[in-house]
């Protein structure tokens, strides 16, 4: 509707004006109707009819474009795959309409967590994909935790019987670290989802344990090693942060008396390096005297019962080491892993349980 008032010259509208307005409105009506029809048509071809998210085809086109952009400007982005697993039991219990409500609800839950620049797409068979523009591994991991938390608490899941309830798994991949093409990234996503299913977190039931119980359980899986081996590894892992300071990540170390010397040596190698990894050390004594990099030095009082550990998670490979608290130079029990989902679980459980502060934003900042 167009409303014409107050002719510019101040006179009343005359016949010429009316003819003109009629002609204009007829054209405008046709143009508007065509535009709306076109938009609806376009949207329908881009939207998954069940969940309302974008289609996998559109997602793939966008990711291909994103690869070109990221390539040109030297940036990264992350992809996330949420797999609800088999929906057969849910289908039997809730029927087709119930599963449709579930899928629409999952899409809505995920959309709530995304930024305007992110894109959600439905991959069919209970799978969803998210493109996280300019995000890195840590940003993707943060969204993954939030998504699983939101879905776990959502009525969408809790109202379905425990036996029929979907078992969502999330895999993440980062361009270009995990693959330089769409196909490679999708393959990594599928592998990561499978890794999540086979993860020790599930096998050992770590997600139902406290951090202290979890570390103890892991130690039982470990093997006897020289005390020096654990110290060498701890020193190496900490000092390696200085070799690639542009990578963003988290490093948590609770060295106890057994690994404190090694961790201090490792930190010394970082002196003066402006790293993007957040360093958190939970130990007695004084923090290193250098201003850069900043080390968040926390009292061990808050985690008195924990075994000594070093956990590193971020853009590079994930790694965690736990050893028993026994001092001395003899044999010690050591567990270590590069299983991404296990390390991620430990890092985020530490943050959550001990309220270890993190100042890192969920997405990657513009690279210097």
């Amino acid at each position, binding site marked *: 509707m167009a409303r014409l008032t107050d002719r510019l010259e101040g006179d009343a509208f005359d016949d010429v004006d009316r003819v*003109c307005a009629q*002609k204009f409105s007829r054209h405008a009506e046709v143009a508007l109707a065509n535009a709306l029809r076109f938009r609806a048509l376009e949207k329908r071809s881009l939207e998954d009819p069940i969940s309302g998210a974008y289609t996998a085809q559109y997602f793939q086109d966008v990711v291909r474009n994103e690869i070109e952009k990221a390539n040109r400007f030297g940036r990264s982005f992350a992809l996330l795959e949420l797999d609800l697993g088999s929906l057969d039991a849910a289908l039997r219990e809730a029927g087709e309409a119930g599963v449709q409500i579930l899928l629409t609800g999952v899409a809505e839950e995920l959309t709530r967590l995304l930024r305007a620049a992110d894109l959600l797409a439905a991959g069919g068979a209970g799978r969803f994909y998210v493109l996280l523009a300019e995000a890195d591994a840590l940003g993707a991991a943060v969204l993954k935790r939030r998504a699983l938390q939101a879905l776990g608490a959502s009525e969408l899941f809790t109202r379905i019987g425990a036996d029929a309830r979907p078992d969502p798994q999330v895999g993440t991949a980062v361009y270009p670290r995990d693959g330089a093409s769409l196909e490679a990234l999708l393959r990594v996503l599928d592998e990561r989802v499978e890794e999540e299913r086979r993860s020790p977190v599930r096998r050992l039931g770590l997600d139902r344990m406290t951090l202290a119980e979890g570390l103890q359980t892991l130690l039982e899986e470990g093997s006897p090693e*020289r005390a020096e*081996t654990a110290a060498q590894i701890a020193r*190496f892992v900490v000092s390696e942060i*200085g070799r*690639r300071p542009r990578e963003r990540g988290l490093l948590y170390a609770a060295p106890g008396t057994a690994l404190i010397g090694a961790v201090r040596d490792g930190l010394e190698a970082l002196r003066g390096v402006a790293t993007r990894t957040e360093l958190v050390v939970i130990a007695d004594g004084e923090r290193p005297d250098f201003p850069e990099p900043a080390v968040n030095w926390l009292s061990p009082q808050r985690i008195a019962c924990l075994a000594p550990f070093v956990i590193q998670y971020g853009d590079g*490979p994930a790694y965690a080491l736990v050893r028993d608290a026994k001092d001395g130079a003899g044999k010690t029990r050591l567990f*270590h892993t*590069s299983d991404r989902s296990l390390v991620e679980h430990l890092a985020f459980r530490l943050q959550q349980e001990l309220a270890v502060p993190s100042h890192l934003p969920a997405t990657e900042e513009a690279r210097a």
Partner: protein
Amino acid sequence: MSALVLIADGDQRRAQRIADACRASGLECRVTSHGAAALETALAELPAVLVAQLDLPLIDGPKLAAILRANPRTQPTRLLFVSERAEAAARKDLPGRLIAAPVDPDEVASGVRALLAERDGAEAPSEPIGGAGIVEGDLAQIPLADLLQLFHVSRETGTFEVSRELEVGRLARGQVLLRGGDVIAASVEAALGEKALYRLLAWDRGRFVFRPEAVTETATIQRPTRALLREGKRHVEECGRLAVDLPPLSAHVTLCIQRSALPNVIHPLTQEVLVVLELYSRVQDVIDHCSYPDYQVLRTLHTLIRRGMVELRRGPGPAEAPDTAAGIFAPAHAARLREWIEAVMPRGTPARDAKLLVVASDAGATRDFVRMLARLPGVAIDERFTTGSYSADDLTSLGRIAVDEDLGIELLHTPVAQRFAPLWPVAGHGALGALFLLSGPASRAVEAVRPTLEALRRLPRARTFSLLLLEKGERVVPEEVRENLSLLDQGSLFLIPLESSEKSSSLLREMLQRVLP
């Protein structure tokens, strides 16, 4: 067909007089009495010239002009304003000529003719010659990229022939084939495909002729036309920006390091340039004989020159390869390594040594390797390895090789036992590569390192090198090596006879040079 003139004037009698004067010059005219009708007609019929009354009813002349200018379809329409107010003659803000009262229709018609002549001068390509649809013109007036874009939008099929005088009496000719508006093939002299197209897009002078005709040739260019034009524009712009740095076409270039000193993983473009460099030395010849676009070849040559791998001579004649045999590493090696390290370091952060993993099939291999390494200049071995007090499970520095005064390679002894598997990706992340030391029967040695080798190979940009250490009198069984070649990349396998210290040092030196990026 004559050009259309649209006359928009609230004074209908004056409008008719102007129209009569224009028609008398053979021009086709439309007359409207207010701005809205003029706009509608302009959008529908795309007039060559609009004669608009300054105080046109509904939408005045300047506003109408602004609307038409904003629309790409009506942007080329030339404008002429008329006004019954004599004082309007002083206005300087109009996007066209103004004829103020008294308005003489003949003067207006003459003004219209002048505008049409001006337009025809600027739009030479639209002037048909010889036959229907043939377009020709000067590239100095309209660049090839603009023409291709225009013809892409209108989905033309036909052949563009372009020519340019390179020097007196020597004409370069090129051809671009369009099918349905898409560029499907291009050639200029010996260059074909995208390379030819990008070269033609850089021509800023010359003649062109477009002939609409069926194109039956097989497409040699697959990339979408818009992407081609974007890329071509980038090449032209970057070539212009880097003109001072890029090697001149008449200069000569020569590879000044030994081929064995080249890294074993090279971008295909660089690889091709290096091969062509063996045959040609003039920059123009190197460009002509590479299949990649001219700009990319020039950039590669520029990088190779900057890294000290290629020498540039502005005068004629190939340069002799300089002797780079002094020390383990030449300055060019150090420059490459520094560049590689600095790529991952924030600006202003001191460069840290690069890391090279050393993975041994057994303790004897480590011992022999350390002994050989210690003979090379600039090598410092960690005490526990000189005294033999190390353990196979150690994850620690084995030593350091100086590359220049303050940059070096740290050798990281990496345990090979399966229980250290979680460490391998962390150790290999961001490493220059991994060096596998194999001693004893090859199959047994390979089996010992196989899990580590496979894990490290899976890392992005992984590079592995293998040293098969041969005891005195020991000979390699060809079948055994062949069996393991799928695992040990043939290009990075070194057979080192321990009995000859001179030969082993020379091979080790060569291997270390190849480890550098």
